[in-house]
């Protein structure tokens, strides 16, 4: 559903009008181009309109844009009074003559206005070749507020949009049709196709459906229009664009839909009118109201109050004389493309091993029937195997008329190659009215030949003589003559029993090995302790054998006994209680007592801090014998 932007509430506007009748108005500069699209050699009109300011001092006499000739053709001044508001305008009109096709931007520029510098808005223009089928469309009509001193807030309805230049060649747009009472029609439509009278089968003809709605009437519930007919296909309608324009001093909201038609057969083509449904709320009070109040609402319409009426805005019919594509000089590889195009080629990678694909990217750019366009034909494709291309389209307008279509052809070299095939693309140019064949040179690559590709390329029979087409293969590949190395089964290894068994076996082995690893870790730790204790035993033994001082002798003897008991109990030496261990380990009471006496002597000498003089040799021998026996019997 489409909703038209209506002016501000009218009652408020009326009140504001009374209050601010003589108030200042906002200064504006508006740039308008009679059409955003044009043709080589067909002039367009460019206007710069300065409202409510003094005359700009330094407007250029010409504007330099490569490919366009833009010259000042006149200056005028206009004073309008709307709703008791005076508007003064300076209008600078330029003629724009396109010299070549392309996309152009007419740049904005700075001018001095009332001592301030103001910059105009840039506008864009797309130019087709001479005789092109681009329909003129309303100019962008951009407006820019001139920065000025602060001014009181105004109701929006007090600002009247500046007049815009109506599209050239459309007298109907300037003069709205009249109703039976002679009033300008509150709504109507038109199909805009420029000066297009003839077309070729398959040629894309851009069209615009314009629906005009008086801005001083209320419309709502507007639906998307219906458009179509026999003998042609219509592109889906674009999203609507809304502009406002004065026609015969009546403000109209214009809703524009873009589309394109493609004639499917030759002969006279009737393009039926498009229709747009909606609802109009006519000014006036509700039905059955007293004539006095009805007159009041007529004079001072209020939003939401009025007589609702379902409407159907209808365009005019158009006719085209559709001509068939000529049969003479039609290239063999013509695949139905109609329009104007360019062709480019690139390849990636530049080096490919045996069996590696090279992607040849063929880019067709321009305007025309991209939907019906077939892929280019490869030339000099001996030694290459090509596959169906991957197509993509990047449109640069709302209807897919202009854009770039890319064909990515995967190719595998059958033999060693130093360049890709070339490409040919033929189309019919409706402007030149003849077929055009574009060619690209082979792209330098280094590709090694692949036997597999050679096998698959050996197509049978006469197909070999046909030029290779970038599309579905003409036939199936040649049969395999030898069995390849035995490949996998339909059942992937990952789902097979042996694969599961292998993984389960590894998992089981890992789980089983964990207790073993724990035991190994403990054993390693135990081994380290044993080594340490044995070292301690050896050190203590050497110490007591060399000691001459009784304290050193008994200290070493005690260390020897503790280390021996620790080894015996498989404990750390610090965790051994020698008295308890001797009681537990030594069964002979006499031996146990003697050993305990050695420990007691050690403690006595250690805690008493007395050396006790020289060690008695007899005592040394007795203790040594006792420890040797202890070591021998319990080691």
């Amino acid at each position: 559903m489409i909703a038209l932007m209506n002016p501000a509430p009218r009652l408020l506007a009326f009140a504001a009008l009374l209050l601010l009748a003589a108030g200042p108005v906002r200064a504006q500069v508006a740039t308008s181009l009679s059409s955003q699209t044009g043709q080589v050699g067909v002039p367009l009109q460019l206007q710069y309109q300065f409202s409510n300011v003094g005359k700009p001092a330094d407007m250029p006499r010409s504007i330099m844009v490569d490919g366009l000739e833009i010259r000042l053709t006149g200056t005028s001044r206009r004073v309008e009074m709307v709703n008791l508001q005076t508007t003064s305008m300076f209008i600078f009109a330029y003629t724009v003559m396109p010299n070549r096709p392309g996309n152009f931007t007419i740049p904005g520029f700075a001018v001095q206005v009332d001592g301030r510098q103001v910059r105009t808005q840039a506008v864009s223009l797309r130019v087709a070749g001479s005789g092109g089928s681009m329909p003129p469309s309303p100019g962008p009509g951009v407006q820019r507020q001139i920065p000025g001193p602060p001014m009181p807030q105004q109701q929006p309805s007090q600002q009247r949009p500046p007049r815009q230049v109506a599209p050239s060649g459309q007298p109907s747009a300037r003069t709205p049709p009249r109703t039976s009472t002679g009033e300008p029609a509150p709504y109507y439509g038109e199909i805009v196709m420029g000066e297009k009278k003839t077309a070729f089968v398959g040629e894309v003809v851009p069209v615009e459906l314009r629906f005009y709605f008086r801005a001083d009437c209320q419309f709502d519930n507007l639906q998307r229009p219906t458009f179509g007919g026999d003998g042609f296909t219509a592109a889906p309608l674009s999203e609507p664009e809304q502009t406002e324009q004065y026609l015969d001093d009546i403000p109209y909201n214009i809703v524009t839909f873009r589309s394109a038609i493609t004639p499917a057969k030759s002969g006279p083509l009737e393009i039926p009118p498009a229709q747009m449904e909606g609802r109009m709320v006519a000014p006036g009070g509700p039905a059955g109201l007293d004539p006095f109040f009805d007159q009041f609402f007529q004079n001072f319409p209020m939003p939401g109050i009025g007589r609702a009426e379902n409407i159907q805005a209808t365009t005019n019919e158009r006719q085209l004389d559709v001509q068939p594509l000529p049969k003479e000089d039609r290239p063999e590889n013509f695949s139905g493309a109609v329009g104007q195009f360019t062709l480019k080629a690139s390849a990636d990678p530049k080096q490919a091993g045996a069996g590696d694909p090279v992607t040849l990217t063929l880019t067709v750019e321009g305007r025309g029937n991209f939907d019906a366009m077939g892929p280019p034909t490869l030339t000099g494709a001996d030694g290459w195997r090509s596959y169906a291309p991957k197509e993509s389209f990047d449109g640069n307008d709302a209807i897919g008329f202009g854009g770039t279509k890319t064909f990515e052809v995967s190719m595998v070299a059958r033999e060693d190659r130093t360049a890709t095939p070339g490409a040919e693309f033929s189309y019919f140019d409706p402007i030149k009215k003849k077929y055009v064949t574009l060619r690209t040179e082979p792209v330098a690559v280094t590709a090694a030949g692949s036997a597999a590709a050679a096998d698959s390329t050996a197509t049978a029979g006469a197909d070999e003589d046909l030029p290779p087409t970038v599309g579905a293969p003409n036939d199936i590949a040649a049969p395999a003559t030898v069995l390849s190395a035995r490949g996998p089964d339909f059942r992937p290894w990952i789902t097979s029993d042996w694969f599961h068994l292998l993984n389960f076996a590894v998992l089981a082995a890992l789980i089983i090995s964990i207790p073993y690893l724990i035991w190994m870790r403990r054993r390693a730790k135990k081994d380290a302790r044993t080594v340490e204790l044995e070292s301690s035993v050896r050190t203590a033994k050497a110490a007591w054998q060399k000691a001459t001082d009784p304290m050193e002798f008994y200290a070493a003897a005690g260390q020897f006994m503790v280390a021996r008991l620790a080894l015996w109990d498989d404990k750390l030496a610090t965790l051994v209680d020698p008295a308890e261990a001797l009681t537990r380990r030594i069964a002979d009471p006499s031996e146990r007592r003697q050993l305990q006496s050695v420990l007691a002597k050690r403690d006595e000498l250690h805690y008493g801090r007395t050396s006790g003089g020289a060690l008695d040799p007899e005592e040394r021998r007795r203790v040594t014998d006792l420890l040797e026996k202890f070591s021998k019997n319990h080691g």
Partner: protein
Amino acid sequence: MVRKLLLPLLLAVATASAQPADENTLFEQGNRAYAEGDYAAAREAYEQLVKSGSRNPAVFLNLGHADYRLGREVPAAINYRRAIALDPANTAARSSLEHVLGELGVPAPGLGAAEIVGQYIRFDLLALIGSLLFWAGTIAFVFAIFSVVRRPGLIAAGVLAAVVGATLVALSWAGDSRIALSKTSIIVGDATDARSTPADNGQKLADLPIGTPVRVIAARDDWSLVRLPVGVDGWVRSSALEPVFPGALPVIP
């Protein structure tokens, strides 16, 4: 331990790679018949090879060719698909599939990421390598954890290997078309329809034209419960279905 498990596996693979003499003979017999234009005899020879357990992509390629020459486009497309699944780098099968699908009016499948990977390494091998890597990493990690000496480098290497291995296994699972299509069958019977119950008098749910892919969910007697492309489940006579990757080649009407 890994070596002890891997050795018999490699031996089994090497043994399986050898071509049996009768397989070669039967294959050459089929090729001769094909060259002489006796496509029915060629098909019979290739089919015999398949029934005897051959899973050679060349056999499926030539079987597809014989089917195509006999006007059986759908079975031909299925056999080309099988050849591609067995050998993703088989350009002959791919171009033939494109040609047949073009004749059937079915869009040719593009070269997906999985198929591009499959051209360079077999998914089976990828799964095996991933699995071995995963277990090697896990074992290294466990050994490092239980070691008396701290080994942070070994722990990190073990975790990394396990993660990479698991990723490879996941990739092979996700990319292998044999897994993705393991339950997919193609309608090969004329006038096939899906019904609400496994009976001829069941309510008709949909007409299934030849070539329609369906996913088999269950089977009962002569009927299979399939999920249609639109997401509806219905019963179809099993004889009208052709599994894309069968255990053995069924008789196609």
